[in-house]
């Protein structure tokens, strides 16, 4: 047994391939046999992975979900930002440049709408919860955009570490909510074309949530959603600590 433990420990990434493969196979079978294909296997697999991430957090008391259990540490390599971004770029081979250009204006409108909506809502909820200073409110609003915009904004304007942690938590909750809700609500909002996916990516903005949600809905839409979502975090980091902060602090005197 000791030999096996050493092998598993040394080859984390390979173990991650095996784990994800088993999970995908099991959820595919479950989706086809038990649910008659009503929920796609990939949506089930992503949902189950979130549950495993929660359990990993409970048992290992770390910050990386299941990847904090040493045998499963390869999951954080396979699911890390390098492979994620690399694979998202590879999905562009299935995208059409013409379609992206046609939806360019819609993408821009949705980006501005999306950042304004999430920031405004975050600030309003922060206000209701008793925060009154512009720095904390701005950081919480930025966290409602994504878990990267939150700490970048908080760091830039000098928020307390407690508020920054809160903004990261908010952003992670948003990612999870988008991941779970997208395949459920896709039909209702009419998410069925490249243009629609671009508008959706621009409004939701969390690139991991958008990518996972679209993958579970219709993998061919992933590149279109990703192309706008990738600009959301950058734009958010740009305007939350500057324009939005100035507006907030002038409103609060």
């Amino acid at each position, binding site marked *: 047994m000791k030999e096996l433990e050493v092998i598993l420990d040394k080859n984390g990434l390979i173990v991650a391939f095996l784990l994800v493969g088993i999970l995908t196979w099991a959820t595919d079978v479950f989706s086809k046999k038990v649910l008659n294909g009503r929920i796609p296997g990939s949506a089930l697999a992503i949902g189950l992975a979130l549950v495993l991430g929660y359990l990993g957090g409970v048992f290992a008391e770390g910050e990386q979900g299941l990847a904090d259990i040493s045998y499963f540490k390869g999951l954080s390599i396979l699911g890390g930002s390098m492979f994620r971004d690399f694979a998202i*770029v590879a999905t562009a081979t299935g995208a059409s440049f013409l379609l992206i250009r046609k939806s360019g204006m819609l993408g821009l409108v949705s980006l501005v709408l999306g950042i304004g909506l999430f920031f405004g809502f975050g600030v309003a909820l922060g206000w209701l919860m008793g925060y009154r200073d512009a720095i904390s409110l701005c950081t919480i609003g930025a966290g409602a955009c994504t878990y990267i915009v939150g700490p970048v904004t908080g760091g830039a304007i000098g928020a307390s570490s407690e508020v920054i942690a809160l903004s990261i938590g908010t952003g992670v909750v948003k990612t999870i909510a988008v991941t779970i809700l997208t395949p459920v609500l896709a039909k209702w909002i009419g998410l069925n074309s490249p243009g629609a996916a671009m508008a959706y990516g621009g*409004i939701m903005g969390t690139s991991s949530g958008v990518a996972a949600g679209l993958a579970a809905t219709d993998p061919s839409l992933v590149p279109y959603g990703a192309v706008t979502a990738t600009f959301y975090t950058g734009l958010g980091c*740009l305007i939350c600590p500057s324009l939005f902060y100035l507006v907030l602090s002038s409103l609060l005197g």
Partner: protein
Amino acid sequence: MIKGLALLSFCFLAGMWCGALLGSWLGIDANVGGVGFAMAFLLFSKEYVTSKGGWNGEFAFGLDFWNKLYIPIVIAMAASLNVKSALSSGVLALLAGTLPVFLAFGVVKILLKQVNSEK
């Protein structure tokens, strides 16, 4: 196969570089749209390589493999998210993380309806 993979890697690195440059030019410590630039480079490269007749099965396989590995990567990512702390970081995080998402789905619906009726 490795030629396709090398092209993908080149586009990826070039795009990330552009994103980092744009980020520092705007004065923020973040990669602005690096993935988007990389995708644009890849789309242009695909046009070019196809026009030269180089986009054959073996070449495309290097890219297609990563395209298909995308969902497994997302699954691994979901399993390594800090789900527990997200759930335990308080009522405000839960509310501010979920309520606007519902609203945003509504906005997407309205926006798409507008666009479709204009056509």
